[in-house]
């Protein structure tokens, strides 16, 4: 497992030792096996418990400012993520929106009253995102959900989709159009929606993996108090942009470490998996070439992330590497899990009835592989990422809009 090399001061080394021993004492034993037959409710309850455990240890929101319970340096955040991966701790999938997008949005743009919701997040409250719509995916700014002012409330009608964990969530970060007469980016406002409000209907969508992480949200005359609008009317798009880019960058460290571990596991599996009597997968020259290709890309992802953090620490900005990390990670996750299927052979195609994945690389390679499309589509498809690289990094002209 890599450390920070020359950047690892004695203080940081001591911090690492503290995190490591805390995780050894607190990561639930055999949690993956224990969750193998869990119901969705049990799965969610397990994650809420883990969130509260992390909070007690002080490792839940290291990326938040100190006054809200965080205050770790970037280097310390990296250490925490590395040690989480090393300990194979549960990945914070259920609370991803709560801890990242909701936290960042409330901290950066919320009123003091709105920020009180941060306490709930620390206590395990689940938030979801109400951004995408059936006709507003990559072209998010064309969203049609309407919020009409009515006294000290907004009345909201519309249809949201791809909202992960909405059926278990208490709160939703909602984008809705408050002014249809101005250009599409300018008429959007940002709301906090209490999902127990009248007129909210949530329907889980059964996914390719067989489980139901994301949902549709139907909004019919839902009343949202004015004080639950974040920022001014019409600022929603801008706020959504800042919070999307402020996802905690250090999370890539953990994702990378999980891939390091997955690749090592795959190499061991290749040494043990029979191809023909007397030969194993690792004897196959084609498999060896692919193991080397994926291993190289795993190391390179770590180097890209390290360069990104070096830029952040030394020069104050993330640099263009930030835009390629998601692209590189998601495609690597897809190809690494595909290689896992190839190494395992026919047994990879048998269904072990996995209800929910505790990580993106469980070692149930075909399910992991199918699950990897979450990463190449969600949060801006890889085609959109390539547009971003082409236009914002390389300075290529945008496609002319169709009037």
């Amino acid at each position, binding site marked *: 497992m890599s450390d920070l090399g*020359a950047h690892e001061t004695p203080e940081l080394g001591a911090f690492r030792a503290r995190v490591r021993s805390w995780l050894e004492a607190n990561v639930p034993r055999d949690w993956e096996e224990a969750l193998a037959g869990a119901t969705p409710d049990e799965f969610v309850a397990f994650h809420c418990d883990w969130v509260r455990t992390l909070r007690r240890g002080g490792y839940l929101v290291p990326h938040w400012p100190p006054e809200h319970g965080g205050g770790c340096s970037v280097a310390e955040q990296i250490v925490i993520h590395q040690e989480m991966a090393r300990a194979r701790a549960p990945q914070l999938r259920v609370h991803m929106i709560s801890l990242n997008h909701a936290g960042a949005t409330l901290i950066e743009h919320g009123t003091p009253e709105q920020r009180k919701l941060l306490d709930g997040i620390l206590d395990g409250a689940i938030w979801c995102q109400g951004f995408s719509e059936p006709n507003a995916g990559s072209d998010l700014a064309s969203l049609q959900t309407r919020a009409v002012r009515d006294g000290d409330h907004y009345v909201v009608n519309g249809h949201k989709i791809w909202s992960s964990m909405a059926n278990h969530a208490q709160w939703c970060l909602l984008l809705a159009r408050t002014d249809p007469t101005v250009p599409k980016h300018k008429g959007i406002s940002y709301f906090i929606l209490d999902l127990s409000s009248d007129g909210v209907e949530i329907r889980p969508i059964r996914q390719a993996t067989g489980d139901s992480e994301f949902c549709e949200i139907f909004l019919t005359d839902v009343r949202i108090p004015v004080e639950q609008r974040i920022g001014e009317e019409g600022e929603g798009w801008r706020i959504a942009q800042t919070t999307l880019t402020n996802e905690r960058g250090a999370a890539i460290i953990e994702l990378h470490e999980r891939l390091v571990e997955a690749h090592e596991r795959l190499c061991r599996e290749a040494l043990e998996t029979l191809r023909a009597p007397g030969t194993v997968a690792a004897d196959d020259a084609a498999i060896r070439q692919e193991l080397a290709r994926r291993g190289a890309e795993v190391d390179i992802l770590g*180097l890209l992330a390290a360069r990104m953090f070096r830029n952040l620490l030394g020069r104050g900005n993330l640099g263009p590497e930030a835009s390629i990390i998601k692209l590189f990670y998601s495609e690597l996750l897809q190809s690494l899990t595909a290689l896992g299927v190839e190494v395992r052979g026919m047994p990879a195609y048998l269904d072990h009835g996995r209800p929910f994945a505790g990580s993106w690389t469980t070692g149930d390679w075909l399910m992991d592989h199918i699950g990897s499309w979450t990463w190449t589509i969600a949060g801006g498809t890889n085609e959109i990422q*390539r*547009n971003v690289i082409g236009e914002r990094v390389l300075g290529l002209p*945008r496609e002319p809009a169709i009037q």
Partner: protein
Amino acid sequence: MTTQSDEVTRTSSPDELDELRRTARAMLDRDAPTTAVRSLLDDPRGYDPALWRAMAELGWLGLLAPVAHGGAGAGLTETVVVAEQLGAHLVASPFLASAVLATSALALGGTPTQQERWLPALANGAAIGTAALTGSLGRADGAASGVTLERTGTSVRLDGVVRFVPDAHVADVIVLAAHDGEERALVAIETAADGVRVEPTPTIDHTRRLNDLHLDGVVVDDAALLEADVTDDVLLRGVVALAADGVGAAREILTRAVEYAKERVQFGRPIGSFQAVKHMLANMYVLTEAASVAVEGAAEAFDADASNAARLAEIAASYARDAAVKVAGDAVQAHGGIGFTWEHDCHLFLKRTQLGAALLGDPAEHRERLAALMLAAARDQQSS
């Protein structure tokens, strides 16, 4: 650039590396525009002696030589910065052969006498060296496949043919791998020695020169033997330098392809606004950045004597060199017909990255070595 007197290499700070990069770029922009390489295409020497002297004066040729022998005592970290600029400018020179391969071989494995004799001259440009380490097949695992070594008293006799030896036609000294039937050894011979014949072999990449090296009963004193067989170490340094050259070339031709895509108008708009072209250019950027961190990571690991240095060097040798070839090929595509003409530089970048990927063992061979390293580590994990 770092200078120091002890044996430990200190890595330059990011600011020092930026300064080295700026200096190199400025000098080569002025003295070695890519148009200059065209004037050397038919030159029998294949390099510009005046430019070579300027490179020596800037200290580039002695980066890997110790201070005690007239070098800078720097490391691969500095070497890859220079190599990237040489690739970006398509510079035709014996830099790889002399400043990387021969200098590394002698600095790492040479006797004190050999080091005293050759390292200062290689560092100041008075002599040119090369290394013949990939045998008759040009493969990393073929180091001794070409030359036999026979010991008689205090002399050794060398016979055989080594192919694809870079810049041997202008070299004064060649470090070559030979086999005595039991083990491999490295020998430093002068090209002027009796029985040594260098036969230039025209290459498709006109910016690099390769030669067949014929050894017909060459008899030298056994003082010509190096103290240690550092072949693998030298090859890894060489492939990292080649990968850096490829990254520099890729970055340069990507920049030109992006500029072209902004200017070239078809169907009433710049072709760079079409997603098919935009995404190809975005992919080229991702490959170039990924290759660049692989090269930097490998160089830093070597200079820090890190345990993953060989692994990262094999990654640079395979991934980064493949990436450069892909970027150079896609650059031809992005330029369309004009990119396929002799007058345009695209083909020079494509040919340079292709030979740069194949030299010292091709990417597939280095990937196989990488797989062996990774599977050995996995075996250790199994048994622990």
